[in-house]
């Protein structure tokens, strides 16, 4: 692994994909409005839940807003990096152009996971950050070094889990060729990350912590923000994230053995 080389290559990736995306400037504006509306919509939904109740699953409205903020940041990251690249992976495999990627003297997972970037996701990330800052103010959270480092750790773990989930599904394209609908299923499951895990019934809670660890993605970082999280939960998230990352890597290398190219 030559870190310098990879950084240099990544800079080139950024440059080329930004240049091509900025061709569609109105598109970026439309995406920004979409992100804002979608945040307004989910806060509206949340306010319906809270209109006659003070607590949902033990969370106050102000506290549940933190989950929305973290979800928005993570969704922005998904839209910036995971979604456009995943679309590319599916195309590579269907059209057989993965051959060219594999021939390059660079790690194939690095290449296909970071090749593209969608700048409109940045705006969504910023939107999430603003909401998060607002939440820090209304919940009167004291910023301290340990708190900031813990929240950074948990959020980066969430990003790793999210990345692994997306990458895992896109890897299955090697066998199934068409995975659009599997992506839709993942999307709809991720949607519940907008709500505190405790607001669901026990069986769903178990499902979303063990089978698809959506619980870890938003609820644990939000608990860290509120100072509610126990250390074992954070440790568990770190373990889950590393297991997911390692498995997705292993799975990619395993899947490549079955790649038989197409139309060439």
């Amino acid at each position, binding site marked *: 692994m030559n870190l310098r080389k990879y950084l240099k290559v990544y800079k080139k990736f950024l440059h080329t994909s930004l240049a091509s995306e900025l061709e*569609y400037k*109105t*598109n970026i504006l*439309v*995406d920004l*409005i*979409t992100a804002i*509306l*979608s945040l307004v*919509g*989910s806060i*509206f*939904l949340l*306010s*319906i*839940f809270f*209109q*006659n*109740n003070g607590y*949902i*699953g033990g969370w106050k409205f102000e506290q549940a807003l933190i989950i929305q903020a973290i979800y928005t940041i993570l969704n922005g990251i998904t839209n910036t990096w995971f979604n456009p690249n995943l679309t590319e992976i599916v195309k590579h495999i269907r059209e057989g152009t993965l051959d060219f990627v594999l021939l390059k003297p660079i790690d194939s997972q690095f290449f296909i996971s970071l090749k593209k970037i969608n700048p409109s996701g940045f705006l969504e990330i910023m939107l999430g950050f603003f909401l998060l800052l607002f939440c820090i103010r209304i919940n009167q959270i004291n910023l301290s070094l340990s708190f900031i480092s813990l929240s950074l750790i948990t959020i980066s773990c969430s990003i790793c889990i999210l990345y692994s989930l997306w990458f895992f599904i896109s890897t299955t394209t090697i066998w*199934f060729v*068409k995975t*659009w*609908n*599997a992506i*839709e*299923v993942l*999307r*709809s499951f991720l*949607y*519940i990350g907008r*709500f505190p895990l405790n*607001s*669901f*019934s026990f069986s*769903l809670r178990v499902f979303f912590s063990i089978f698809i660890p959506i619980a870890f993605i938003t609820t644990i970082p939000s608990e860290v923000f509120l100072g509610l999280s126990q250390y074992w939960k954070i440790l568990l998230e770190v373990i889950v994230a590393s297991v997911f990352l390692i498995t997705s890597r292993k799975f990619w290398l395993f899947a490549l053995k079955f790649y038989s190219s197409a139309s060439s």
Partner: protein
Amino acid sequence: MLEYRVEIALWAISGIIPFFMLNIWTSNNLNESINISDVMLSRYFLCAFFVRQFSVVWVVFSFEEDSLMGKVSPYLIQPLNPFFRYFAQHLAEQITRFPFALIIAFFFFIFNPESLWIPNLGILLLSIVSTFLSFLIQFLIQSIVACLCFWTEKASSIERLLFIPTLFLSGLLAPVVSFPAYVKSWIYLTPFPYLIDFPANLLSGNDTNISGGLSMQILWIFLLFPLFKKIWSEGTKKYTAMGS
């Protein structure tokens, strides 16, 4: 269509968000405040799932792809509006989706046996009609957006924008009765509640104004259809046959 059974099964699964919402409503006893019993609410969300399954439209995405690849040119020569082709595709897929939706409903009743009910034939027919009308409204709106492909390359991002109010206001995530008064005062003038909330209320036997709902649906179709005609005839004049 039967070739893609797995695809369609996954599609059906991806529509289960209403069930997650139902779970939030019932596990927090939120429905007490809006005077809907657990059973009625679970029927409502099941019906919302069904209505969504049979009214979902993706014509923008098909049309955008065909237009970018230049496939629209041969369609334009044919003496039939190309949107009929997409319309037929949608209908065919809805029929294929029916058994999968039934399987999901079956599982739903296993977990919630108390909410099992049989709507009477008249209500069933009326709700099928209103679901179809809801499908028509969404198909027309999306076709209008799809026609924007003649002016811009990426009409699908406009569709994604329009999808947000559809998602939150149509009643898929929360029944419209539960909305705060400042939203309820104007929402019935928009097409959104007639997309999912109205047919789902009708089918599940919740209170709803049947004749009012149906006439609003028909009114929206009569408003949207000439608009589609207009934008289609304007658009085809602008058509530049990309990619061919």
